[in-house]
């Protein structure tokens, strides 16, 4: 009972915030609705027992992707009124895409009714009582250690690549030199002057 209520709550929220993402006038509001949609989708994932995917949704989509969207929307000066001006022109294309998606849904339902695809050979399905985070944890640092480390190297290459392609030494900047600052003694910087009255200060 409580699951059913939770499902309908999350499902309605996903659809409603999805609609609002598309229709919101203010792009910042759009992104915020999108974040809400992600949260509710994560809730749905928890309901079907996929806690790991739920956490990924929150961490990756909400934590990184949506925040990135928000930054882009706020920092780039995009003229959204101008973007919207093309709506009428691209409407047929949009309708076409919508029809394709609709057809896919119909096909998917038909295929669902026809029965499952024969994937009986699935190797070592995880036992039902093991939560999927635990199941992942038992293989990722043991059996797949090699791949895991290699994935780390891929990320390192991405980092080196980003630096190689974008970093440049800028001339004429005056960065702080901590060593010089620490080395400086008071007598180098401060001078006591017995200033006579009626004369200008000599610097």
């Amino acid at each position, binding site marked *: 009972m409580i699951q059913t209520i939770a499902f309908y709550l999350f499902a309605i929220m996903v659809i409603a915030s999805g609609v609002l993402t598309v229709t919101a006038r203010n792009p910042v509001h759009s992104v915020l609705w999108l974040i809400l949609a992600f949260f509710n989708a994560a809730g749905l994932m928890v309901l079907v027992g996929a806690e790991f995917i739920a956490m990924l949704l929150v961490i990756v989509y909400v934590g990184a992707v949506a925040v990135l969207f928000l930054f882009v929307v706020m920092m780039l000066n995009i003229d959204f009124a101008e973007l919207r001006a093309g709506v009428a022109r691209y409407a047929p294309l949009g309708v076409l895409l919508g029809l394709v998606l609709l057809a896919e849904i119909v096909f998917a339902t038909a295929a669902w009714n026809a029965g499952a695809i024969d994937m009986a050979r699935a190797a070592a399905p995880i036992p039902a009582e093991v939560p999927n985070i635990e199941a992942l944890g038992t293989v990722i640092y043991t059996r797949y250690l090699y*791949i895991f480390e*290699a994935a780390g*190297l891929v990320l390192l*290459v991405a980092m*080196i690549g980003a630096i*190689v*392609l974008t970093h440049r030494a800028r001339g004429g900047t005056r960065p702080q030199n901590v060593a010089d600052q620490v080395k400086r003694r008071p007598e180098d910087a401060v001078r006591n002057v017995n200033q006579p009255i009626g004369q200008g200060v000599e610097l």
Partner: protein
Amino acid sequence: MPVTQSLALTLPELILSLGSLVLLMVAAFAGDKATKAISWGAVALFAAAALALLGPAGHGGSAFDGLYQADSFSSFAKLLIYIAAAITLIVAPNFFERNGNVRAEYPILILLSGVGMGMMVSATDLLTLYVGLELQSLAAYVLASFMRRDTRSAEAGLKYFVLGALASGILLYGISLLYGFTGTTAFEGVAAAFGDGLGMGEMFGLVFVLAGLAFKISAVPFHMWTPDVYEGAPTPVTAFFATAPKVAAMALLTRVTIEAMGGATDAWRQIVIFAALASTILGGVAAIGQTNIKRLLAYSSINNVGFVLFGLAAGTQDGVAAVMTYLAVYVAMTVGSFLCVLQMRDESGQPVETIASLSGLSRTRPALAAAFAIFMFSLAGIPPLFGFWPKFLVFDALVGVGMWPLAMIGIATSVIGAFYYLKIVKTIYFDDPAPAFAPAESKLEGGLIALSALFVSPLGYLAIPALGAASMAAARALF
């Protein structure tokens, strides 16, 4: 199997990755001034990794629960890869110095790419395959746009990245289909599932995986990126692209088709035959109108990949041995040609890339002209040069399985290719001299050219017993 034992089997990759981390630190603290030293350090690491192949890492068998395979097939491919990568490391600093783009990250990216290529040729699991491929490709995208102020280089990098990502997506889709329908990512498991009949889903998975890999070896119809990327990338990087990653991807394709999809030979053979025919024909015809030597060599590499695929199409042990021999000779020919292209500089030291600038080279630089001619004759597969031998082996393997009509078509297509190779020789020897190139600067590059020219000259036939035995041992590891 304990982890230490697995690590011993992956020693070459271990040396390269740890070494690249150390050199990265050197690069970070010493800066671009140390590029030359870092390059030599990287060459030493490749040599050390090659030496490690003598130990258990060369033939020790399976590691990490079947994710990785150290056998004579992988050692053969790794040796080729390390040699090719080391040569592109040696010639690069001079090239980048001349146009003011010296960056210490170049050798490090090549090293990390080498780790990825080692993973690729040793992969016996779809996951290792994919991660290795991505490691290699990601480094390659950065290398393509290494001269970022040069618009052509930036364009090459962007194009390579976008199309490469598309290919990775296709490959990954195929892998997920194979996993879904066979229930495993291990080659062994996939082979077992293919053995008892090929279902629709498995068939789709096979096609997508082959399409993704065909992109990486730039076989037609997935070759579109090759001429643009080869033309735009800095010449040492192009030399790298045309050799090491190609060997890695080709070895990977061979292992996947033979080990994992051996039960469905008839299914993948059609695809390989189509790609082979299309590559040899298009690689030959499209090259004719080219005026840029790097573009021409790009089409030449497409053409050569077609011939290698003929060997794979045979699907026998002889076929795979022919593939390995072909790759070894191909690396020598291609490295040699690109080293010659590196010598093409005008008086001010700027690289020139037009074929017209080669005209009359025999009168201004006779030695370079002779080397160029040897490489071109060899690429055309004209006996008695060594480039003829692997072509002969490939078609011999085809005839061995009774596919002689295909062998005849293949030989006919090699005649198309011969036309443009010979046109370059004609330009070099019989046309009026163009302005002379700047004199050679580095004795080392001259020595490398001479060495590879000697290998592909008729003297190369002396290497046949050793090369043949090594190729045969490599092929035996897969069957």
